[in-house]
């Protein structure tokens, strides 16, 4: 565990510049957070992003921190203000953003990428580049923030970020049901999560306790301790195609309930098997290659990594 080296904008700026100097402008370099999502590329010079929270503005629903800050620290600091951020899991803020996987509350909270308001990243030229802005609403210039999320450190290394926070739910409750998950999706008002393993549906509701109870009664939901265990692999399917998972499972002679947990209304599927490989359409791959060539012409940032290719 690294001690925070940032506690305000001044120390943040110094740490970001020092990080940029570390990254430099020549030779292959990789970045390490806390290794939760695969970690650094093995066998090359490794750098780490600044750690620490510069500020939290509860009335703005924004906060600023170094990208190396542990998500647990962010969660604890925000909880003191009754807030949280829609970035799931363990590890660091920068690691989560670089991989770009949302949590199981995506149905209600939206994708993680929308939590990023402003980024400063270190470019392949070793320069500090800012994109986005400190306010929730902002259309000043092209949206490099969205481009950076999920780019696996192949376009630049996250140095520090301004994040959009959200109120912690005052009340939330998990339920299970044997009803068709799409019937629940259609009937419940904005559930935070609807998970399905081919047999059982899990539902997360938040809001006023009276509303939660009324919705639960209407559909005969049964109180549950929490969500199911999620299998290790991650698939991304159009949300109207999730029904085929059950057919796949029976064809393989596998018990459907054991092999997957699907996020209904979203399309993320947590599966026991790796996702079937996919390929980018040629025109999209060409634009992506040009983006990479513009941002990291010598392929020095996280060599060998590629954004989000499955299989």
């Amino acid at each position, binding site marked *: 565990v690294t001690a925070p080296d940032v506690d305000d904008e001044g120390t943040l700026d110094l740490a970001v510049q020092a990080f940029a100097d570390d990254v430099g402008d020549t030779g292959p370099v990789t970045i390490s957070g806390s290794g939760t999502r695969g970690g650094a590329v093995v066998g090359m010079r490794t750098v780490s992003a600044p750690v620490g929270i510069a500020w939290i503005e*509860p*009335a*703005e*629903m924004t906060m600023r921190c170094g990208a190396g800050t542990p998500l647990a620290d962010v969660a604890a600091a925000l909880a003191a203000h009754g807030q949280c951020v829609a970035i799931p899991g363990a590890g660091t803020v920068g690691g989560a953003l670089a991989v*770009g996987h*949302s949590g199981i509350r*995506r149905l209600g909270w*939206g*994708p993680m*990428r*929308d939590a990023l308001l402003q980024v400063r990243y270190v470019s392949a030229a070793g320069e500090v*580049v*800012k994109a986005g*802005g*400190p*306010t929730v*609403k*902002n*259309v*000043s*210039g*092209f*949206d*490099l*923030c*969205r*481009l950076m999320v*999920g*780019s696996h450190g192949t376009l630049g290394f996250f140095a520090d970020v301004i994040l959009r926070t*959200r*109120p*912690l739910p*005052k009340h939330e409750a998990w339920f299970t049901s044997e009803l068709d998950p799409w019937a629940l*999706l*259609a009937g419940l*008002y904005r559930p935070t999560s609807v998970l399905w393993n081919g047999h059982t549906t899990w539902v997360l509701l938040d*809001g*006023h306790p*009276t*509303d939660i109870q*009324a919705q639960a009664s209407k559909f005969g939901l049964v109180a549950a301790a929490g969500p199911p265990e999620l299998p290790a692999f991650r698939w*991304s*399917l159009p*949300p*109207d195609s999730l029904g085929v998972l059950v057919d796949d499972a029976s064809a393989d002679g596998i018990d459907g309930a054991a092999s997957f947990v699907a996020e209904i*209304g979203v*399309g993320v599927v947590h599966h026991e098997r790796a996702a079937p490989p*996919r390929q980018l359409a040629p*025109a*999209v791959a060409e*634009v*992506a290659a*040009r*983006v990479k*060539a*513009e*941002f990291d012409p010598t392929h020095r940032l996280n060599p060998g990594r590629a*954004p*989000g*290719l499955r299989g």
Partner: protein
Amino acid sequence: MTALARRRSHRGGEATSPVVVRLRERLRADQVRDSPAELHLYRRDASNLQGHPAVVCFAETAADVQAVVQVANEFGVPFVARGSGTGLAGGAVPTDGSIVISTSKMNRIVSVDHLNRLAWVEPGVLNLDLSKQIAHLGVHFAPDPSSQQTCSIGGNVANNSGGPHCLADGVTSAHIHAIEVVLPDGTLCVVGGEDPEPDGYDLRGAFVGSEGMFGVATKICVKLMQNPPDVATMLLDFADVADGAQLVSDIIADGIVPAAVEMMDQLCLQAVEEFIHAGLPVDQAAALLVEVVGLPATVASQVERICELAAVREVGTVRVAADDDERALLWKGRKSAFGAIARIKPNYYLHDTVVPRRRLPEVLAQVYEIAARHELLVLNVFHAGDGNLHPLLVYDAREPGVADRVHAAGDEIVRVSVAAGGVLSGEHGIGLEKRDLMPLMFSDVDLAAQAALRRAFDPDMLSNPDKVLPSPAGCGDIHSVPEGAWV
């Protein structure tokens, strides 16, 4: 060939350009217009800027758009896509000599999956039309710019548009799953996908808000939101603008994110009241329109809590709309502000900046001071929940020298907003209007990264050139907003 165009080509001396000839080979003749009257109509959008297009093409399909873009590439001529032309920053103003591609005839809702809450639409579908046509399915498209009756979804994508209800639900980018795009070299592809985590870089995210400079959207997969079962719309008025502005921060800090929080100042209240007679509090300094939505107990408890917080900020009266008619009337007050203003002066210049919510009181005070110093009348009607200011400078263009004062005041308003930790634009975009102000927010290094992204999509710089990015030294010609572009 239209009658006017025929007459023109018969006039002699001014022969039809080779670009137009080739376009007429690729599209039907009636889709390709170059008569002076028609070109005149497409010189400008809803901003105060104008250019001179060479020709206007009315695309009906993605193949039409592809054909035009291919011709543009063949001749090295720039092109600009145009939806409804409601943009306020000059984003659809054609660079001189460019081809305008109108997508207004591409206005089909292609498919709706109300169960999984997504729809494919063509770019010319009007924002409000989409929500109206799917209302019976219990869903809507959340972004709701004030121009929603006339603006197109394609334009919303280009500008990453906002609207009052983006406070809780987010701007356009959060509501776009995928976009079928004709890239600037004429190839057709889909960025993003119906699936939640498409492979590769988030080119969808990069495309939204790219103001027509990364290609032309020909089909858009939008996210649909459930209509709320219960709604409460409240009008709260204040003797002091600062109290109203402070209440906005209090509500958010308390953990309530209303669906919308709009503010109108006294001049605006008075203008609107004369126009619609809704019983607005015209003697008060400002009013907040607050809407909370959701399940009944949530809505009731939030209304109660907002009233408690408002009492601390010395609220005058609290009016809660009793029914849908009253709610519609209050919203009509908000959305008809621009029409009402015509009763004061014939012209207005609408600004769009964002400041941190907590800085609203002081920045508003500065806006009033700037307007007074330039001897201009200013009305404020804006998205207070987002800190998204919309000062309206009203004036009579026939008054000598007034245009210079309006521009000088506007420039100062942008500068004080950015100095207060804000941004150049909340929802209108940069376009031509604020292009040369980008260095207020971004360094040369930052701007070079944006230019790099632009080159990756459009290496030949044909798609809506000269917008958004000020031309850095050593990167081609220095273009400035052309002389006479401001009208």
